[in-house]
């Protein structure tokens, strides 16, 4: 057969235990937090800060429409990438979170220093940054293997 076992995408783990989760104000405030150390994006889902390792994220996009900013995060899932074979997913029969979209207002609440959407702007910038570093390292490691 093929050397598919070796080619299989490793599922990197964000945190080995919940104690390692960062304790940042953004997390208490149910905002998005990008943990550069653990290369993980922490997304708020109805009270829960939910980590996603950067290797799960395919791409992100941001848009401003009227009074709101939107941040959309697309994740890798079977069928998401031409050229990436189904075998590269360790768990192709699972249900995948494919995409999440967040919305924040561009208008400042009186007394606040910045508009709620500044959290999405920061998240967009930091996710791009962490993703770039991660991809560079992945490419370097691949080069060493070949």
């Amino acid at each position, binding site marked *: 057969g093929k050397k598919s076992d070796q080619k299989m995408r490793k599922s990197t783990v964000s945190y080995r235990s919940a104690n390692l989760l960062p304790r940042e104000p953004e997390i208490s405030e149910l905002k998005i937090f990008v943990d550069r150390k653990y290369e993980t994006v922490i997304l*708020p889902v109805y009270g829960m800060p939910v980590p996603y390792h950067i290797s*799960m994220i395919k791409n992100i996009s941001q848009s401003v429409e009227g009074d709101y900013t939107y941040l959309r995060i697309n994740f890798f899932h079977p069928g998401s990438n031409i050229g990436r074979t189904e075998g590269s997913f360790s768990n192709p029969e*699972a249900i995948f979170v494919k995409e999440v979209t967040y919305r924040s207002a561009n208008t400042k609440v009186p007394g606040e220093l910045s508009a709620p959407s500044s959290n999405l702007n920061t998240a967009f910038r930091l996710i791009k940054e962490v993703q770039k570093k991660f991809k560079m390292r992945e490419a370097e490691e691949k080069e060493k293997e070949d």
Partner: protein
Amino acid sequence: MKDETAVLEYGDVTIEARGTMVGGRLKLSEQGISFRNSKTGKVESVSASDIEVINWQRLAGGYGLRIFTENGSLYRFGGFKESEQSKLEKFFKNTYSKTMSEKEFSVKGWNFGAAKFDGAVLSFDVSSMPAFEIPLNHVSGCTTGKNEVTLEFHQHDDASVNLMEMRFHIPASELA
């Protein structure tokens, strides 16, 4: 006869409401649990006999109390300190004869797992541990496409970051 410890009050805790943690006062008594929203004065109460499951869990930036009722509703109260776990555990044991177990959530950071429905709650489990829970009353719409399901959520300006939409990839085997 119950002694005076059969009432617990927390003056500065929160409730998860529409994607934000709202401050208020929580009272736990023999009759049940009531939460008074400190801004609106609105009271949410759950009678003791309606409670099915009581959990201690990680919530927002700290710890919280998770109450799941017989009719399938989910209540999460946050702003608790780790040190309050044993006192609450004793209270529920003595007053409701219920065990407050710790509910662990996945921190693996994976986007793949299994979706499970229990009452009015969707739980997305990664390696048999929930990664998040969605109370279905937050869902405003649901559409299905080829190998996918999209959930749209009610928007509330009281939450500074709103979850708008979540799209799931459903494998062909699940659709059969």
